[in-house]
């Protein structure tokens, strides 16, 4: 089991409600939303959760993605992903 980056493509046209619902679904599966676009969500979650995410009626396709450093905006995307991830991580106090 390993956390990987995936593109979760929406089924049909963009709808804010569906997008939000899928983000909640991701969160329930211990996943993290890295970036939201009109065609889908770039998310990070455990690879064992792929069938569960795929089963959502609003999801058309789930596919693994990687960030190529040669891309025009790779460094900026990486920063956006890191910022969004940091907002979702729960910091637990040391016991």
């Amino acid at each position, binding site marked *: 089991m390993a956390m990987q980056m995936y593109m979760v493509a929406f089924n049909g046209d963009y709808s804010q409600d569906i997008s939000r619902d899928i983000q909640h679904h991701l969160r329930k599966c211990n996943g993290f939303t890295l970036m939201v676009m009109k*065609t889908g969500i770039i998310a990070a979650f455990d690879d064992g959760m792929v069938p569960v995410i795929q089963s959502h009626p609003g999801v058309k396709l789930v596919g*693994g993605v990687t960030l190529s450093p040669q*891309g*025009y905006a*790779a460094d900026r*995307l990486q920063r956006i992903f890191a910022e969004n991830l940091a907002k979702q991580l729960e910091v637990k106090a040391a016991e």
Partner: protein
Amino acid sequence: MPNVGAELASVPFGKMIYDMASAIARSQVALDKASIQLVKVLANTTFDYVPDVVETLLPNPRQVKGAGGAPIMDSGGNPVMVTGVLVQTDVGDSFPLTLLQAGVNPTFYAFTNSTIEVKMSITSTQESSNTFSAGVSVTASADFLFCSGSVSSHVNFSSANKFSYSVTGSSSMSTTLAPVPPPKNMMPRFFLVNAIDPTKVTVSQS
């Protein structure tokens, strides 16, 4: 006696290999199709990309004010100034960029290693036991004109043979799925034409 060679020969290795290879080939096609579909999604997903933001620091001298807003003067009667700074921001025009151009690549997977393991255990036991017993009894009697005698004997023989033969087998198949770089033929090529110097064209591919 058990024939180990015959038992091993009866294992359908050929069919097992064919079935496994066939399943891997079908899975590979399905995985490639999903990745190609993902390439289309990434190529059609655009976002507004701001290429640059220029921040210019400009001098912004201002006079230091004292209590009540009155300007502070030095001993020579000149106003005391601080340099100050003004940040002028110039945001470049945004343009649509696809996720593929931005650097998000689909992951392709390939089956790298497949193993078929067959374990077979052949057990054969044979037990045989024989018991043999024999006895002879002789009786004789004699009288004045008469004598008699008898001889009797017995032989007991028993034989028991036990034979057991068992063959147990198990097989396991395992395969490794690993992410691989996108195949060249499945990824689009990017042509970067420099409009300032059109002779400079850069071709790149993920």
